[in-house]
């Protein structure tokens, strides 16, 4: 074919040179199509990076919002850990513990006051019991004196009777003394009865008071020690809880900050896209230059027209090292058909598949 077209050449070219030019034209066509394929791959990659970066950025934004929310929640928990609600009012835990302590102190003060007053009453009743005993002794002495008085009255009555008419007046006095002694005895009996009633009442009161006073409340006082230990333990646990929450808040804050830095770091995508666009522009220039040189060569050597197909050797060398299936498929389509697979990839698939089998 080349030999038959020699006469149409504008400039005489030897067969050997024409064959070499044909090889150069095949290589340039392969390179031109490769430039086109590479440009499209770079644009696809740039788009993929852009879409993926935007997706990642949105996810990081969501993550940052969640982290900020977490910081807020931890702050809220820290606030809750600092106080408790009492009758609808927030009371700092330290104040609540102090109030419990004050209540305990008052309770113990009341126990001590009760013990002290109970013992005062015990001593007072003991004193009254002694006084009652003294009163009973006085009554007994009165009874003894009265017995002697009655005896004297009886003797006086006897002597008055012996004296006859002269003892009449003395006899009247003796009867009066007897009546008086009888009244004293009656009164002494009444006093004695009342004193006995008071003694019984006193003994009952003393018995009740003894029961109260012997009710040992020292264990209740010592309960304060256990409650003190509990309060100290609760405070220590609360402090540890707050410290752990503060660490968590710090970690969440650091996480939010790091995510912010990551989002800022995502801006590399803009620079990458600009760089890739420049490479695509260069590849476009190279493709145009190659095409212009092909046309100029064919103009100079017309017999080479239609001889600028692609050599499978060149294609195999380019595609052979590609490992990504889709990219390899697109490269093959471009090199063999000079078009992008995305135009009609379904229709070209069988032919492409056979070509892939070829390599």
């Amino acid at each position: 074919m080349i030999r038959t077209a020699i006469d149409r050449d504008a400039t005489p070219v030897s067969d050997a040179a024409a064959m070499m030019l044909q090889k150069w034209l095949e290589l340039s066509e392969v390179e031109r199509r490769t430039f086109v394929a590479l440009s499209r791959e770079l644009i696809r990659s740039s788009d993929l990076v852009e879409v993926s970066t935007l997706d990642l950025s949105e996810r990081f934004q969501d993550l940052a919002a969640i982290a900020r929310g977490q910081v807020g929640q931890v702050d809220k928990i820290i606030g809750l850990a600092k106080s408790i609600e009492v009758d609808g009012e927030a009371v700092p835990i330290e104040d609540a513990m102090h109030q419990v302590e004050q209540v305990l102190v008052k309770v113990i003060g009341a126990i001590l006051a009760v013990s002290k007053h109970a013992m005062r009453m015990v001593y007072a009743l003991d004193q009254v019991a002694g006084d009652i005993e003294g009163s009973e002794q006085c009554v007994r002495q009165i009874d003894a004196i009265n017995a002697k008085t009655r005896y004297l009255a009886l003797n006086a009555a006897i002597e008055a009777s012996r004296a006859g008419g002269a003892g009449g007046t003395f006899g009247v006095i003796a009867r009066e003394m007897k009546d008086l002694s009888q009244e004293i005895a009656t009164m002494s009996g009444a006093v004695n009865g009342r004193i006995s009633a008071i003694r019984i009442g006193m003994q009952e009161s003393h018995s009740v008071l003894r029961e109260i006073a012997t009710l040992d409340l020292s264990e209740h006082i010592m309960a304060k020690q256990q409650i003190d230990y509990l309060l100290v333990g609760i405070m220590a646990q609360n402090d540890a809880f707050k410290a752990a929450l503060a660490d968590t808040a710090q970690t969440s804050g650091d996480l939010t900050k790091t995510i912010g830095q990551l989002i800022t770091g995502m801006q590399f995508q803009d620079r990458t896209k600009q760089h890739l666009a420049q490479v695509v522009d260069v590849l476009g220039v190279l493709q145009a230059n190659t095409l212009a040189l092909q046309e100029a060569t064919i103009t100079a050597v017309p017999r080479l027209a239609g001889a600028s197909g692609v050599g499978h050797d060149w294609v195999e060398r380019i595609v052979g090292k590609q490992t990504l299936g889709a990219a390899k498929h697109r490269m093959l389509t471009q090199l063999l058909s000079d078009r992008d697979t995305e135009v009609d990839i379904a229709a070209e698939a069988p032919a492409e598949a056979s070509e892939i089998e070829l390599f």
Partner: protein
Amino acid sequence: MKFTQQNTPEGAVMTLDGSFTFNDFREFGTMLEALRARPSCRHTLDLSRLEFLDSAALGMLLIAEDELRSSGSSLTLRKPLGSIARLLEMSAMHKVFRIEH
């Protein structure tokens, strides 16, 4: 409880031995009367041998402090140990008495 008394120029030192409870109120009252008979003194209750103290005994101690203070004397609690020391501490007795450890 067993009381022992030692007199010094400053005042009496009463040593309480065993358990001090309600049942000791008469003996303690008698001892208190003896201390009141010496006004303006610095009396001491040695608690180092005391093993138990009930709330009635705490009441008696407070009465003793009242009575002795009204007679111009003072009452010091000396060397409370173990549970006695803890009970006095929980009762805030240090606000009422001078306590020597």
